[in-house]
């Protein structure tokens, strides 16, 4: 397991790449959910939510 994480000495570069992609995608989805909640909160008929 630690050998896998070490990536033959390239851990910083490989995990820095994979991690940035994961972070970017998670943040994008989170921001979209937040944006949707903000719009629905502005709708007049709240009892439907």
């Amino acid at each position, binding site marked *: 397991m630690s050998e896998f994480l070490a*990536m033959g*000495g390239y851990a910083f570069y490989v995990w820095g*790449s*994979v991690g*940035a992609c994961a972070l970017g995608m998670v943040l*994008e989805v989170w921001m*979209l959910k937040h944006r949707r909640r903000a*719009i629905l909160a502005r*709708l*007049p008929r709240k009892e439907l939510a």
Partner: protein
Amino acid sequence: MNHSLVNWFKFASPASFYPLAGRLIPYFAAVAMALLAAGLWIGLLVAPTDAQQGEGYRIIFVHVPVSWMSMFIYCVMAFWAALGLSFNTRLSGMMTSALAPTGALFAFLSLWTGALWGKPMWGAWWVWDARLTSQLILFFLYLGFIALQAAIDDPRRADKAGAILALVGVINVPIIYFSVQWWNTLHQGASVSMTKAPSMAHTMLLGMLLMALAFWAYTIAVALMRVRCIILERELTSEWVKKNAME
């Protein structure tokens, strides 16, 4: 009346596209998750170690798919832009806007993962060569598109201005793609060619394709989520939104 025509134009209306998009999102999200898991498993665990670059080459499994997506999304934006300018359909402009932030994200990730690959292999985070510079311009085109649309208050006019920028900017995509052939560059040539037999191990190719398909499904799911937000924001006062948008 032609039935297929009727169906297509039915979904060109935001009010009828909104629920359809909502139904499609979970499927594309599930496909994206499954393909991501498979692609990462093959890319990080199954694919053999590279003879020259050791484990460091595994960056390819994110770098190449995100770079493909950054170029492909811009082409799809140009397609929706052309459709919107030709037929004056409202949904086309909304789709163009919905894709731009995701394209910008992939363009950024392409530069980011490229820097993390360039440092150990070339000894430099960044060089001003044709491939890298044209990809940086693609990132700026996405940011320019988003900024231009944000600067125009009337959404329909913002769509038109954005569509023209998307169509003019699409010239950059073939420049990026062929930059490695047209100019002397530090960047290696195309990883996958349509005309030549694959030069890499089959598991490597499979991992890259799975990741590319995963990002495809992700992009569709996220673009549909964003277009639903855009539709709601623009039609907040209309009757159908008040009745149906909560579903």
